[in-house]
């Protein structure tokens, strides 16, 4: 699959057309359109309350957009349920970490592989050789993923007992376990110190190198500038800029949104 | 759509037999008033802490159970008939029962629900079911499995008698004399006392400081706390008022039907909860409207279909409303997810 993915690099993987989300008269996302290309690290930035997470929720089916269209890999996925979106290959993390606190780190990652497993109820009840083999493979892969994000030593700890940074990494491992082609990261570096941020950006690059397109939300512009190839800037639900980090950095509207009118 | 059909059906019934329909509606409105009193407590508690207080139906029964010995203190026994001297006593006992009931409910909240306020959602729900069994069990232990006879303190006289507008549609031409429709003093008393209580409640909630605190807490507990509202006190007040109304409901029920049993609150509570859901849980006006509608539906069902099916019909409505319109008729909270 990954060979195929890299061959098609540069094609559009996610396409948003006029996506709008209203909550009881409040417009959280207003007619936003952009494309994410296969194989890039794409960033969505904007001040607090700009509607970034709402946009993620519209993409991943947490709620349908009020208007507009979301296409993934050429397929219209507007209004799809979250589990279908995940099955099609979009995984995500959450801004306020949502690991399964009372499952082990290993089980968190094993759960991520749920939709890729084939054991049916009878296999599960009777523990057929097929189910055992599959469990063994899933466990092996879960260990690999924990190693990949660098928290393998916590494999058997309850997720709630992991340190903060490890929980963020666990969420990424769990998302990767769904074998996504597009990974949405919602402020993955929130609460990190500069050193940790650098490490996280290395991890993001490692993920991209595995032919997973990365689409991340970040609050901190400096973090994003180094890591991403293209950026969209959202302010009050409206797209105010799009382009390479250099283009965005020098955009007057972006500066205004971040520093206020006086600047 | 189904509402339209129901209304057409009622109009048809009215055309066929106006006297019967009006008599049925009177029963429905009277019962509905009592359901509304209980429904208010469910909706208020749900509005403020999002808990289905399963014990509320039994708090309603407790009202009647407390009222009987209190009336006994004034020498009123199950054989006593209506006399004007009893009216002030009755009012006094009502107030006393409402207060006692409120205190019981505050205690329940304090002991059983408050420690679990931040626990997983299932915990307070299971505790509420347990509380319901404890209350029922206590009343069972106290009075046993028999129906208690309640004094008939409301006059059995007819408040208003009028000739039915029969024959307007020319459908029941068989009967020569137009039948008389009686509305008893009892029915009028039940409806009036309910209306008075609901008005008092709405004045309290909309005009007083505590009422405002309750509305604020219901909308956003954290924000209310930040604004300096004492959350615990506000929640206690909600439980107190809910139980006071339910206690009044229990007294009214017992006075109207002259009998009360320890397990009355289980079914009645579920019917009242249906009323609260039908009106839109968390919504005070909705609970009153829902109670009235459920009372009328129940009375119509009992007269024109079959009494043994009315619980089935009402619990069916409960499931249907939750599935198809979880916000109820008037709406407020979205109970999904």
């Amino acid at each position, binding site marked *: 699959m990954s060979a195929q993915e890299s061959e098609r690099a540069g094609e559009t993987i996610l396409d948003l057309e006029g996506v709008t989300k209203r909550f009881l008269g409040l417009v959280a996302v207003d007619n936003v359109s952009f494309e994410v290309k296969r194989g890039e690290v794409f960033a969505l930035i904007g001040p607090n309350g700009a509607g970034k997470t709402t946009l993620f929720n519209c993409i991943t089916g947490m709620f349908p957009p009020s208007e507009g269209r979301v296409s993934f890999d050429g397929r219209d996925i507007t209004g799809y349920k979250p589990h279908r979106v995940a099955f099609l290959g979009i995984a995500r993390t959450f801004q306020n970490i949502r690991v399964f606190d009372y499952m082990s780190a290993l*089980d968190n990652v094993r759960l991520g592989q749920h939709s890729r497993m084939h054991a049916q109820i009878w296999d599960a*009840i009777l523990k057929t050789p097929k*189910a055992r083999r599959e469990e063994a493979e899933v466990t092996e892969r879960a260990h690999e993923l924990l190693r990949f994000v660098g928290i393998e030593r916590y494999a058997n700890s309850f997720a709630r007992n992991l340190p903060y940074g490890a929980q963020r990494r666990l969420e990424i491992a769990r998302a990767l376990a769904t074998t996504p082609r597009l990974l949405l990261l919602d402020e993955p570096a929130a609460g990190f110190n500069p050193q940790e941020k650098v490490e996280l950006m290395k991890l993001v690059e490692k993920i991209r190198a595995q032919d997973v397109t990365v689409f991340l939300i970040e609050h901190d512009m400096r973090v994003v500038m180094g890591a991403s190839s293209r950026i969209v800037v959202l302010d009050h639900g409206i797209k105010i800029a799009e382009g390479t980090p250099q283009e965005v950095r020098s955009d007057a509207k972006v500066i205004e949104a971040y520093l206020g009118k006086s600047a | 759509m189904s509402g339209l059909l129901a209304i057409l059906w009622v109009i048809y019934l009215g055309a066929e037999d106006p006297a019967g329909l009006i008599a049925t509606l009177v029963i429905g409105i009277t019962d509905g008033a009592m359901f509304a009193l209980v429904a208010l407590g469910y909706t208020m508690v749900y509005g403020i802490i999002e808990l289905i207080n399963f014990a509320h139906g039994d708090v309603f029964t407790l009202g009647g159970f407390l009222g009987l010995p209190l009336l006994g203190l004034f020498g009123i026994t199950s054989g006593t008939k209506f006399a004007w001297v009893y009216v002030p006593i009755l009012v006094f006992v009502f107030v006393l029962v409402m207060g006692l009931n409120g205190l019981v409910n505050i205690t329940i909240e304090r002991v059983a629900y408050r420690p679990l306020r931040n626990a997983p959602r299932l915990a307070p729900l299971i505790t509420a079911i*347990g509380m319901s069994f404890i209350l029922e069990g206590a009343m069972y232990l106290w009075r046993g499995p028999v129906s208690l006879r309640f004094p008939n303190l409301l006059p059995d006289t007819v408040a208003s008698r009028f000739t039915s507008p029969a024959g307007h549609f020319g459908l029941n031409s068989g009967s020569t004399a137009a039948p008389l429709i009686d509305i008893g003093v009892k029915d009028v008393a039940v409806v009036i006392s309910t209306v008075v209580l609901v008005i008092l409640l709405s004045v309290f909630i909309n005009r007083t400081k505590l009422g405002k605190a309750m509305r604020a807490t219901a909308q956003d507990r954290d924000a209310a706390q930040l604004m300096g509202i004492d959350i615990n006190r506000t929640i206690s007040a909600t439980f107190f008022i809910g139980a006071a109304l339910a206690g009044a409901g229990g007294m009214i029920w017992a006075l109207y039907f002259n009998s009360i049993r320890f397990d009355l609150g289980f079914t009645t509570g579920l019917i009242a909860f249906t009323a609260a859901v039908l009106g839109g849980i968390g919504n005070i006006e909705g609970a009153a409207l829902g109670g009235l509608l459920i009372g009328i539906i129940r009375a119509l069902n009992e007269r024109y279909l079959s009494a043994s099916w009315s619980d089935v019909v009402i619990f069916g409505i409960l499931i249907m409303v939750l599935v198809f319109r979880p916000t109820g008729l008037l709406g407020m909270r979205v109970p999904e997810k």
Partner: protein
Amino acid sequence: MIATLRDPKRLRAKLRQWSRDPYMVVYGVLFVAAVIFPPLASFATGTSTLTGLAADAGVWVLLAIGLNVVVGFAGLLDLGYAAFFAIGAYTYALLASAQLRSSPLHQAVHLPFWVLLFLAMFVAASAGAILGAPTLRLRGDYLAIVTLGFGEIVPRVFRNDPGHWTGGINAIGGIDQPTIPVCLDGPWSQGDDFKLQFGAVNCSFSLSDPTAYYVLMVILIIACVILVTNLQISRLGRAWAAVREDEVAAAAMGVNTRNIKLLAFGIGAAFSGFGGAYYGAKLSLVSPDNFDFTVSITVLVMVVLGGMGNIPGVILGALAVYFLEFKFLTDLPRNAAALANQVGLQGLLAPNAATSWPGLEDFVGRLNFLVLGLILVLMMLLRPQGILPSRVRAQELKAEGAADDTVFDARAGQT
């Protein structure tokens, strides 16, 4: 598993591992107790009545294991569990008695017990699916009230008897009793008065000895425990745990939350239906009054007392509540009266109309509601993880900053 048993070295290692696992120890103790109970009981009392009671307790154990899948694993509060019990019982009663002769069908149906046991399971599970499909997307407390409503509707429908199928309040009697191979009676069996001859084959069946029911029940429970434990540690069990904790995150990870909840609901209903069929067969009588809310609550109390989500705990809880409800509290009035006689409080025995004292026996006989309620409330307040908690629940309910850092790998004892 079999390879392990053949190799003494591996077997010893396995046994050592089990002896350190409290769950396996509980299972071991329960199994030994189950084996020695019938001879011990018949030796002590001279009859097999106690064994029969224990077999009845087994039905409740099965019900509790089933409800535990719904409440403990998937975190769905099902308050209408008795409805599925009723559906199972009526499925058996209708298809294994003369009842349908007086129905619009005009034809009695007598299907064999073993077929009906599974049919009842299937019918109950289907009813669960029909109720669950539209309602499982509702929030937890709304689901609870919907199931409560359903639990009230079903017995009323059986009582009202639409179309004259169920016999209404007259109940269905004369239900076929199952035929169980006599070998299940075991060497301690007492009754062999109902033996039948099947043609040339000398094949004995016993219909009457409670010991046969008991042995059958123990076998069924062992099978269910193994199968449900498999389920718990499978991908489905993991998905249930995830949905219970955070439905949104589970859905985002590709779990079809509605289907996985429906599965738990259906499995719970199937257990209940199975129990219902067995119950109908054992009692040979099914009446609409046997399935009220108290039944649902009793099973819930068993699960809560034992520890939600934890199979050995739930078994202990079921046995404890069964003993409390059907032995201790049933015998209590008589025992209390005897005690009062002994300590010279005979005055309490007679009812007194003036103080509305119903007499000691009556009074004590009214305790069961209160006891059920107290168990629920006290357990939720003081020991919400149950008498034998699952490790996960113990963690969930422990205060912040718990020290226990390692999780027990449920697979360790199994593979």
